[in-house]
């Protein structure tokens, strides 16, 4: 999905692709993996480490200590090893990642992956066709839909003119 988006939309100048860290607390090594990517980023290899981390998930996600594996990846990418190790061991980008988390939470993100296409939210893993449809809609001037809720609906609770509306889409099973 990601390479196709880059090829069709980023490389053609139609979209800007931004990655923000949202390491979930129950993913043991997600925070440190995000830090590893940032530490590679300061040496100009963010996207290479990004790819290495995703491609190497089987190797490190179940590991008792993933940090040496991340350091090994840095070596494979020909990074300055001492600089990378110091960066990773010193939690240099921990606060930056927390700032990403706060930004995501404000945007309504609660799980990963989550996407925003000019404000149009897509939650969970999506097919390229879904991205394509959403991007083309935005390119054509489409905006994020606003939900109209019928005030007399027997499925509503509370005042019709309340400043905040929570809409739940669900099933009963």
């Amino acid at each position, binding site marked *: 999905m990601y390479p196709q*988006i*880059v090829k069709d*939309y*980023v*490389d053609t*100048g*139609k*979209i*800007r*692709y*931004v*990655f*923000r*860290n*949202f*390491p*979930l607390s129950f*993913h*043991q*090594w*997600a925070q440190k*993996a*995000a830090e590893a*990517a940032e530490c590679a*980023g*300061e040496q*100009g290899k*963010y*996207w290479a480490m*990004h790819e290495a*981390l*995703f491609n190497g*998930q089987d190797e490190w*996600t179940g590991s008792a200590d993933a940090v040496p594996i991340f350091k090994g990846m840095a070596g494979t990418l020909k990074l300055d090893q001492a600089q990378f190790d110091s960066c990773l061991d010193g939690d240099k980008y921990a606060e930056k990642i927390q700032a*990403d988390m706060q930004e*995501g939470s404000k*945007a309504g*993100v609660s799980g*990963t*992956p*989550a*996407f*925003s*296409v*000019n404000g149009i939210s897509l939650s969970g893993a999506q097919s390229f066709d879904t*991205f394509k449809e959403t*991007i083309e809609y*935005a*390119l054509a001037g489409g905006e994020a839909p606003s939900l109209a809720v019928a005030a007399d609906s027997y499925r509503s609770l509370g005042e019709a003119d309340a400043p905040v509306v929570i809409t739940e889409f669900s099933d009963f099973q």
Partner: protein
Amino acid sequence: MNLKRIWLIALVVLALVAACGPAITTPVPSGQATVSTQAPTEAATLPTKTPVATKSPAPAPTQDPNDWRTLGSADAKITLIEYSDFQ
């Protein structure tokens, strides 16, 4: 009596001379240097042109040089943000 008058006239004349004379200045010792506490000022120059207010161009979208997590043009019409972790 004449002597008293003469003295009175003499005193009046002296008083008038003192009042119309030059001010008494305290002499500065010639060996004492005086230091100016003000920086020398350049001769004021008149502006040769009237300043003209110029309209600044709109600021270009800034791209944080430390944000290596962005791909594509900063001018792109669409921004796709992915929030994710690596695990």
